[in-house]
């Protein structure tokens, strides 16, 4: 009974996940669980191992050690930091292509749903190369969501967007969260992490320094402000 309850609520589970590149440790012994409809923010300084961890979770990199459930790409949507779509193809063509590659049973329905959710139906025949950075990123995320995954992984999704585009993008992501999609995203924006994430995973030099809610991070660092708490915890752990 307890096991079936876990299967229902846990969307992603990592246990002792590590990755080494030619003797260099990029990620070391990271463990966490992501429940259905939960949002996890991966924060940490540059080179902390956030992208490596997300790549392992997405099935793009094989871990050197540790376990992942589910393993591989099934049921997981992946949105890399740089838009990974074909600029010469239209929005609809990109969505249709990835729907077929993901093995979606009704690709046209999925394309319709994504055009609706991104608000880009009017521009569905426009080549992606002619879109603004914000719209390109929306198509990039829509491609990650085309197979209606249980978990959506985003690597710095708002890094190149202005505040208005960021707000619109988070509206779009939150709609999916409300529908039960779990989200893990990497970011340098502590405010963004505080605003949208229920859990924070703090990485530095590949090591997991903290896992908990934003409020718990402030308590652990004895700081009232999340920005200062983040810096204080890094300093306290010698980073």
């Amino acid at each position, binding site marked *: 009974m307890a096991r079936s309850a876990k299967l229902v609520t846990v969307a992603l589970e990592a246990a002792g996940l590590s990755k080494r590149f030619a003797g260099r440790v990029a990620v070391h012994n990271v463990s966490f669980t992501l429940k259905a409809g939960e949002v996890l923010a991966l924060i940490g300084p540059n080179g902390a191992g956030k992208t490596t961890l997300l*790549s392992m979770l*997405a*099935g*793009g*990199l094989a871990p050197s050690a540790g376990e992942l459930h589910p393993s*591989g*790409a*099934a049921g997981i949507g*992946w949105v*890399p930091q*740089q*838009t*990974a*779509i*074909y*600029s010469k193809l239209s929005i609809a063509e990109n969505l249709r292509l*990835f729907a077929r*590659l*993901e093995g979606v049973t009704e690709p046209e329905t999925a394309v319709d749903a994504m055009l609706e959710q991104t608000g880009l139906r009017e521009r569905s025949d426009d080549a992606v190369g002619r879109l603004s950075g914000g719209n390109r990123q929306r198509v990039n995320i829509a*491609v990650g969501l085309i197979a209606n995954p249980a978990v959506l992984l985003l690597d710095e999704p708002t890094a190149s967007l202005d505040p208005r585009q960021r707000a619109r993008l988070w509206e779009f992501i939150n709609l999916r969260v409300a529908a039960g999609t779990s989200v893990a995203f990497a970011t340098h924006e502590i405010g963004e992490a505080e605003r949208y994430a229920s859990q924070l995973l703090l990485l530095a030099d590949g090591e997991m320094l903290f896992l908990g809610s934003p409020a718990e991070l402030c308590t652990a660092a004895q700081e009232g402000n999340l920005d200062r708490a983040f810096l204080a915890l890094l300093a306290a752990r010698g980073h």
Partner: protein
Amino acid sequence: MALRTLLGKDLRILARSPVLVVLLIAYPVVIAVLIGLALSSSPALPRVAFLNEIAPSQSTITLGNEQIHTTRYERELFAAIQPVMVSTRAQALADVRDGKTVAALIIPPELPEQLANAAGSAYVDVIYNGDAINQALVEEAIESKLAQANVLLAAQLSRVADGYIDLLLTGGDLHFLGSSFDVLGLVHAQSILAAVLSRLPPSSPVRHALVQVDAFAKIAVANLGGSRQVIGAVAAPVVARESVISGRRTPLSEYAVAVAVSVSLMFIAILLASGMLALEREENTLGRLRRGLVSTTQLLAEKALLAAVTAVVVSFVMLCGIGLFVPLGFGRAGLWLLAICGGALAFGTLGVAMGALVREVRAASLLVLLVSLPLVFLALVPSGSVSGGLYDVIRVISAVFPFKASLEALDAAVNQSQPSLASALAHLAALIAGFGALARVALRP
């Protein structure tokens, strides 16, 4: 100061980019040296296996009062080639077959007898390996020198013939097989006949026959002198008798067709395959595709196949189009297609290997041009036109790049040349496997 700082920075970057240094500096230097050596040693003196089968005791031919020394004409030919002396006909053929020499030039033992009999032209044997470029290279050199030798020889033979004509006309002593004969000569014979006829009665029964002989003698005396010019015009006492080891010679024009189609095939397939794979990196879609949507092998195979099919269609249409102007034998079109498919797949696989090494389409195109063009040139260097060691280096480089094998496959399919289509296709299959493995390694995450 700023210049020195920038220079220092760039040198440091180059020192830390070994692949870039190899590609931009070492590779062009190596290729330039090879091409330079190939150009400097060809095609002035092609290496030709030389065998003189005439016994030393028979190397001087006596015709009338003239003596013809065959070694003199041997020297004439050596001015046009770099002779590689061999002792047997089998060794000469082996040297041509192995590519140690461009061709073999053999002076057969019966040459003195053929010249002495003057029954027709005498022959020297020139043997090629079927390679059109090789053949063109040697043919020109040997035929030019043979023409010079023939001028000298024809003059000598003409003098001998003149002597015989004089003897027939005016008479004299003829020395033959150690004996001496007194030849009357047509002029004297005609005088004697005229004197006899003047003394014969008109009713003599032999008069009619003698009148006919007298008329012949007059005509012979009047016309035999003119035959000197005719004999002088015989310009080729010795001709080259050409043959090909593998049986069939590819005419240079048809070989050029195979080269042109192979070059097109190469550029279309390599540029398309490398460009399409590099485009995946440029668009950042490679990571997305490889996280379980498609395997590395599927991705590489798709790009190589797309490039190969495109190149096959264009090259086959091109070959058929050329066939409208050059007689190519459309009955072998199935084999053309087979050869083009083999070459296109090999070039496509090489293309994905190159595309896997770079991040941008423009860089892929540059890499393809940088690598391919010099290798095409090296693949066309004829065997025997450069030193053996250098040719071995060129042969190894050409063997690991699909152009030579593709050209051989197409030449075999179009012109029935050697090596056979099957062996060229086997070579291409090995290259496809090798470059496929290389591309997989290069595309590792």
